[in-house]
């Protein structure tokens, strides 16, 4: 029984990480209609940056925030490449984000080398009702909840958030209202960058990252986003938790190497079922 709870705890915190990546994907998609293949890369950059800043002597907290800011900047730049040129259709933008991700590999290896890196987060664990809960896991979960609460408030309550949502629902009408769609798109990318950054600084102490960690982060994040229907960022939290817990159970009870295939197959099944239903109804894809 203890094993079950420890898998559960692990799954929840991993799921929170997925959820953060997922929310970045969802926000960028909602605002720009582009799936950002470079989303995982934001987390990697933030993780590396935090490791470097901590190594240089910056205290905890400051280093992480600086790393998140860096990730937000990288997100903004990704957005510039992907959408700033007028006339770029979503397919071209998708490939452009792929290109940015590959370019980022080059920069990352140049700056930080090709070996995995980590840094220590909160060490030690609490004993909750007989289960060992590492403190870093608690931190991840708490921060994720706070971030999602803030996202929900931002999108529902603030004008800026509603403007972003407007661009997502109807770019044409948004433009008529004087909302600069490209500018909003860039803000969306920057926000996606920041969210990826949060995931990166939270997860790196638990799981060393290297320049190619972005693929699995993206895959899991996108899977969570799909489970959430690519609509409201908040649903990404649910999707991430479901996926994280499922993967943890598979890793614990079956074979660890099957967990990524699980995520992929699950996502594909849902995507195909959704698309098949849509085709059957002859609905125009939004």
């Amino acid at each position, binding site marked *: 029984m203890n094993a079950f709870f420890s898998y559960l705890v692990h799954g929840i915190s991993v799921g929170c990480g997925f959820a953060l990546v997922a929310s970045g994907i969802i926000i960028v998609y909602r605002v720009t209609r582009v799936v950002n293949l470079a989303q995982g890369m934001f987390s990697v950059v933030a993780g590396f940056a935090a490791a470097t800043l901590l190594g240089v002597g910056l205290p905890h907290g400051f280093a992480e925030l600086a790393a998140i800011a860096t990730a937000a900047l990288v997100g903004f730049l990704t957005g510039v490449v992907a959408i700033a040129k007028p006339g770029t259709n979503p397919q*071209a933008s*998708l490939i452009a984000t792929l290109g940015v991700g*590959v370019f980022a*590999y080059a920069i990352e290896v140049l700056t930080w080398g090709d070996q995995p890196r980590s840094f220590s987060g909160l060490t030690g664990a609490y004993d909750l009702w007989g289960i060992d809960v590492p403190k870093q896991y608690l931190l991840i979960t708490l921060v994720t909840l706070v971030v999602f609460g803030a996202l929900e408030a931002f999108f529902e309550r603030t004008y800026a958030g509603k403007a972003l949502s407007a661009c997502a629902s109807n770019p044409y009408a948004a433009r008529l209202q004087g909302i600069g769609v490209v500018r909003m798109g860039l803000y969306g990318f920057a926000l996606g960058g920041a969210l990826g950054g949060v995931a990166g600084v939270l997860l790196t102490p638990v799981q060393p990252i290297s320049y190619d960690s972005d693929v699995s982060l993206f*895959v899991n994040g996108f899977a969570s986003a799909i489970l959430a229907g690519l609509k409201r960022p908040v649903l990404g939290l649910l999707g991430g938790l479901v996926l994280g817990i499922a993967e943890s159970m598979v890793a614990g009870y079956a074979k660890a190497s*099957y967990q990524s295939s699980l995520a992929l197959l699950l996502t594909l099944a849902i995507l*195909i079922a959704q*698309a098949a239903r849509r085709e059957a109804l002859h609905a125009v894809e939004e």
Partner: protein
Amino acid sequence: MAAATLLDESALSVYVLLALTASVTVGVTLLMGHAGQVSLGHGAFYAAGAYAAGLLAKHGFPSWIALLVAPVAAAGIAAVVGIPLLVLRGHHLAFATLAMHLIFLSLISELSITGGDVGLQAIPPLGFAGVTLSSVRSYAFLSAGALVLVVALARNLLVSRPGRALRALSSSEVAAASSGVAVGHYKLAVFALSAGFAGLAGGIYAFYMGYLSPGSFPVMLSIEYIVMAAVGGLGKVSGAVAGSALVFLLVHGLSRISTLSGMPGTAPIILSYAVYAVLLVSAVLFLPGGLVAFVLARWERPGARSERAAPVSEAKPGDPANEGVTSKHGSFS
């Protein structure tokens, strides 16, 4: 082909890999340029062909049979996988093909029959009628031959009736469907055909290298094909060959420079990633007709604006502003 006779030994090994890569890229460019589908997973079909050939050869089948089975196996997998997969479009399909590649890698790493992480070793060399191909030069001829075959098939496809249907698909699926084109069938057919090209190349690769492992087929491989197809101009068969040559030689040349003494050990990776990225982004944002077409047009008519219809159509289902039907062709009977 002439190059295969003329080049010296060291250049030949580059030639072989280049010809094999170009064969796969022809398939990818057909898929992306004409059937309008982004495939982030074609490396998996290359791997499938390679493993199919390798497995059969190691289990005692005559090597030339194994080689013939390779493209069939890859195309077969594509046909089966494509039925559910091709329901998806745009970024969903892109993700699905990426997922397919990853799942395939996971499978071959796990199954003991494929040798797991270590892979297949000591694949017997290719041979038939008592002749064994063992020199690099012979593989150069073989891979060049495969490329010629692939290009011929692709060209034939495009000028045929199914080819016109394909080009209609790339302009507008809605228009094509309303003209009676069985959209689903054609998409599946191109998917399977392009997988077959990749499988053939993979089969030759298996015999050429003599060993296979999951590490030979990373996701980056699929991305390389996309870069080469984009550089050459999506949908253009000659562009696929030219784009492959350009990118491959550029990256190869850079890695030669970067392995000179004095350069850090990670220099080859850095340079190759940077080159792929810059080429991909420039091609996709600025030159949808492909870098190659751009250069050629400038060459022939200096100063004149080249007019190339962008093969990656804008009438994508995800674009509500573009629901207008655009048909660039005559009748589809």
